[in-house]
Every structure is written in structure tokens, then in C-alpha cells.
């Protein structure tokens, strides 16, 4: 078996989700070749060779690949595909755009966002928005796979010693053109799409004490939310409200501070991957859904948390 793994990057640095995809690839087994396609992306290739477990890095460096447009990127991958039994990558928006094209052009099915590797041709993947997990088996000679990065540990980014081969084929399909992009500022992401959310409730006591929350949020690159009680009490505006009648969020990490955990609040955040509750009332219902609970005075805990992050 031999695996072609597509690197995720910004032409400057390797994105850590790639390291999770390498783990998935290693579970499948066989030699792993990583493709770095981009523009002026030598530094990414230099990162890539150090990743544990790779035998080779292919560098396709051309202005055409700068923005990872699906038409050109998929043509490049298909051109290289003949040597591999598996083509795999972390399910980034670039890969989600390009990989199904690769599968179609190879006349094979695609396995979307796998969360587990059972064998070289059998995988687990979530369906129905994660409410069920399907075990799926591929009959195709080439397996085209995208990986849900959060389901796999990352391999070591240092210690590897792969060689770099330069790929000179360039596919410019000429039918789509990059116009512009507007990347969200990372310091305070939008509540609905943030990876981390820290919310305050009635226990915050005042509008001023939300500053404590914001300082922690800044450290984490988190969005700030609030319970309905905090909104009702006038501490913050209602566009920050998380809950059944506010925004529904499902971040990687949700930190509930001074929130008792009324059911309508839980409805807005219970799908979060990891939930932390900080509350002085150890009987607060929020602790029943929290993965990690910390009982104590938030006015002491928040500054300490900010200092230690």
C-alpha cells in the first residue's frame, strides 16, 4: 500500500490538521507521501519533511496553486494518483472542495470525514450530523478519503527525515479565478462559528465583570456568550445570548461561567465537544453536562485562569 496525503497549509506554515491526517494514514499502513501544492511554499515543504512517518514530500510550487482552487488542485492530484492505493487529507474547506472531484475523475467513491480506521478499506464515519456512526467499506481500487482531524491525534511535527521531490506539472483549468477573500479576525470570532466560547451568566453579577470574561476570551481567541439570565439582567446585549431562544453553538470548547444551566441554555450549547463549568453553587445543573467542573468564586478563578493560559 502507498498513500498520497495532501498537506493543508497557507503557503507559509503547515496546518496542524495535517498531522492528524498523518495519524489516520499510519493506521491504514504503508508508505506515506505528502503533497505540498501551493505558491512560494518551500517553507511548508521544509516543515513537511520533519513530520514523523513520511517517506517523501512532493512539492508542486506554482502561482496556479496559490489559493488551492479545486479545478487545478484536483487535476494535479489525479495526475499523481496512479502510484497510490489511498489518497487522503484532512477535511479542510480546500479539501472538501477538491477531493470529491478527484474521486469522480478517478471513477471511485469518496469516504467523507472518517473518524476511525478499521482496516485498509473499512472506516467509520459520522452520518446524520453525528447522531449515528456508520462503518463503511470501499470496493474501489483507489480509496479517496477525507479525515475529521479532531478524531485523530497528531503525529510529531519534528524528527522525520523525508526527501523533497519537485513536481513540475501545472494544471491551470482557466475556468475559475480568485477574486478576493475576507478572513475573520482571529482575536474575537463570531459566536456561532467560534472554536471556543466562554459564556457568563447571572453569577457574573454585573456588566463590568464581563471584562474578566473578555480577558480570558482574548487569551483563548474565544467568542463571548451569555445566558438569558445575564441578558435579562442587562449585563450584555441579547445578540450574545446562547440558548434555545438565542444562538445555538457547538464549539470544541465551551466554558460556562456563573451559569446555572437552565434547560433552554443547555439546548444552545450541549453539542459542544468539551464543556467546562465554573460556578460557586456546586448543585448547579450545569455540572451535570460539564466534562470538567470547577466549584468556586469566579472572581478569583477568572483572573487566575487568564494569568495561567
Amino acid at each position: 500500500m502507498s498513500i498520497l496525503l495532501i498537506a493543508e497549509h497557507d503557503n507559509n506554515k503547515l496546518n496542524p490538521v495535517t498531522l492528524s491526517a498523518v495519524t489516520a494514514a499510519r493506521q491504514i499502513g504503508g508508505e506515506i507521501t505528502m503533497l505540498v501544492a501551493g505558491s512560494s511554499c518551500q517553507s511548508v515543504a521544509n516543515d513537511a519533511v520533519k513530520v514523523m512517518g513520511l517517506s517523501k514530500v512532493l512539492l508542486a510550487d506554482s502561482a496556479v496553486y496559490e489559493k488551492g482552487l479545486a479545478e487545478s488542485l484536483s487535476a494535479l492530484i489525479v495526475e499523481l494518483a496512479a502510484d497510490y492505493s489511498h489518497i487522503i487529507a484532512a477535511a479542510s474547506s480546500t479539501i472538501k472542495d477538491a477531493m470529491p472531484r478527484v474521486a469522480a475523475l478517478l471513477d471511485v467513491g469518496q469516504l467523507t470525514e472518517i473518524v476511525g480506521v478499521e482496516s485498509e478499506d473499512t472506516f467509520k464515519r459520522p452520518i446524520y450530523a453525528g447522531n449515528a456512526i456508520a462503518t463503511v467499506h470501499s470496493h474501489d481500487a483507489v480509496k479517496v478519503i477525507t479525515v475529521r482531524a479532531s478524531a485523530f491525534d497528531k503525529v510529531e511535527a519534528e524528527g522525520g527525515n523525508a526527501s523533497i521531490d519537485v513536481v513540475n506539472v501545472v494544471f491551470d483549468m482557466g475556468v475559475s479565478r480568485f477574486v478576493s477573500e475576507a478572513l475573520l479576525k482571529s482575536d474575537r470570532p463570531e459566536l456561532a462559528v467560534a472554536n471556543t466560547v466562554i459564556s457568563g451568566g447571572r453569577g457574573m453579577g454585573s456588566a463590568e465583570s464581563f471584562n474578566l470574561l473578555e480577558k480570558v476570551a482574548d487569551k483563548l481567541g474565544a467568542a463571548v456568550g451569555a445566558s438569558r439570565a445575564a441578558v435579562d439582567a442587562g449585563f450584555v446585549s441579547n445578540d450574545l445570548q446562547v440558548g434555545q431562544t438565542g444562538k445555538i453553538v457547538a464549539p470544541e470548547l465551551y466554558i460556562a461561567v456563573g451559569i446555572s444551566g437552565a434547560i433552554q441554555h443547555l439546548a444552545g450549547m450541549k453539542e459542544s465537544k468539551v464543556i467546562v463549568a465554573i460556578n460557586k453553587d456546586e448543585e448547579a445543573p450545569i455540572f451535570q453536562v460539564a466534562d470538567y467542573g470547577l466549584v468556586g468564586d469566579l472572581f478569583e478563578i477568572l483572573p487566575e485562569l487568564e494569568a495561567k493560559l
Partner: protein
Amino acid sequence: MKIIVSVKRVIDYNVKVRVKTDNSDVDLTNVKMSLNPFCEIAVEEAIRLKEAGVASEIVVVSIGPNAVQEQLRTAMALGADRAIHIETEMQPEPLNVAKLLTKIVEAEEPGLVILGKQSIDSDNNQVGQMLAALTGWPQGTFASEVKIEDGKALVTREVDGGLRTLSLTLPAVVTTDLRLNEPRYAKLPDIMKAKRKPMEVKTPADLNVHLKKHISQLKVETPPQRQVGIKVDSVDALIDKLKNEAKIILRKLG
């Protein structure tokens, strides 16, 4: 310009799915079925383009058993002009769907094909991209804004960390994301009118497409339940658990 919209009949998003006790699949007995939410947005976008004078005709296509005609009628009540039902027993795999749609596209020669970015049952997120690959057309996936100007489609896409705008040569394939629009409701007079709009029924054989098996579903399980949480006694212990047990990266990315 003609627009083709492909839609899928799926379990309603509100229904809590239950896995069958024999783990063969989820239980779909007598559950509410609706238009896939992303497909609803695709239909709405096509109607808006027609209302804006950009499109002249909207053809809606769905693949599956007879019941999908209900969703095709809904799409016509919303504003599609006619429907094509490709009759199949099971829900074909994405690549087969893309092949069937390719045949429709070859026959109908639309300027634009709009699809939902994924269906909320199989969550594959593949058909639009595969259709674009098979037709050789450019694609604008996960669209949050679509403008047609000077023979080009200006598509703003939702990408990791922000928005990206592409200019696509027409004809092109667009797949919709949630924020593209808020779909309208079907009005009663239009629901009545939709019953008289034309519905063509075809089979994969008519289209000369062989439905090939690429991926089999071996079993379906309920996801692991959230573990009972623990209490920690200090901020240090909390940070340690988050880093080492939950493997959360506690810092700003990028």
C-alpha cells in the same frame, strides 16, 4: 439562462434519529421527510435569480423512489417551472447521482446548476463537486452569496476562517451554504398551481447510466455517549485536564 436545481428528500432535521436494534441502519419508519435544508436554499436561490431576471427557467431534479415527487411538487410550489424525477429504488451513491445529473445537464444545457452542499442524512458533501468534475465545469461550493455578472458567476464561499470570492466562467456548478438565503414558504395558490406543472419521469436506464456499487454500509451504531464529567479542584488541574485529557489547544490559532 436555464437553472437546474437538484434536490434530495431526507429525514426532517428535527427528527431525532434512532439506530435500528440490528445496527443495519437508522430507523426511518414513519418519520417525517422533507426537502433537505441545503436543497431548499438552492431552490430559493434559483427563484431569486429568476425574479431578478437573470434566469428564465428553473428545472428541479430529484433521484429516488416515487415519494420524492412530493419534494419536487414542493420545489415547484416555491417557484420551479418543471420537474424531472429519476426513479430509482434506493438512494444512489454520490458518484452515481453525479453521473445521472451529468446526463440531465447534457440534455438540458443549463447555464447554472445549484445544489445543496450536502444532505443532512449521509453528510457526504460530494455531489456538486463530482458533477462539476464530470462536466468539466467550474464550481463554487459552500456559497454564501451568488451574483451573475457579464457571463460570470461571482460566488462568495464560506471557507475555514472566513469568506472567499471566486469568479466562475458559465456554465458552472454552485453548492449552497446555510447563510446564502432564507427560503420562502410555499403559498397555497402556488401549491395548487404546482400540481399542474410538468413532471417528467426517467430511469437510470433511460439515461444510460449503470449504478455501480463503490461503498457499502456495513453497520450503523449509536455514537458513544458523553462520559459523566468530573470536578477538578483548581485552575491548574482544569488547564491540565483540558490540555492532556481533552487535548484542547489552549491558545489563539493563527
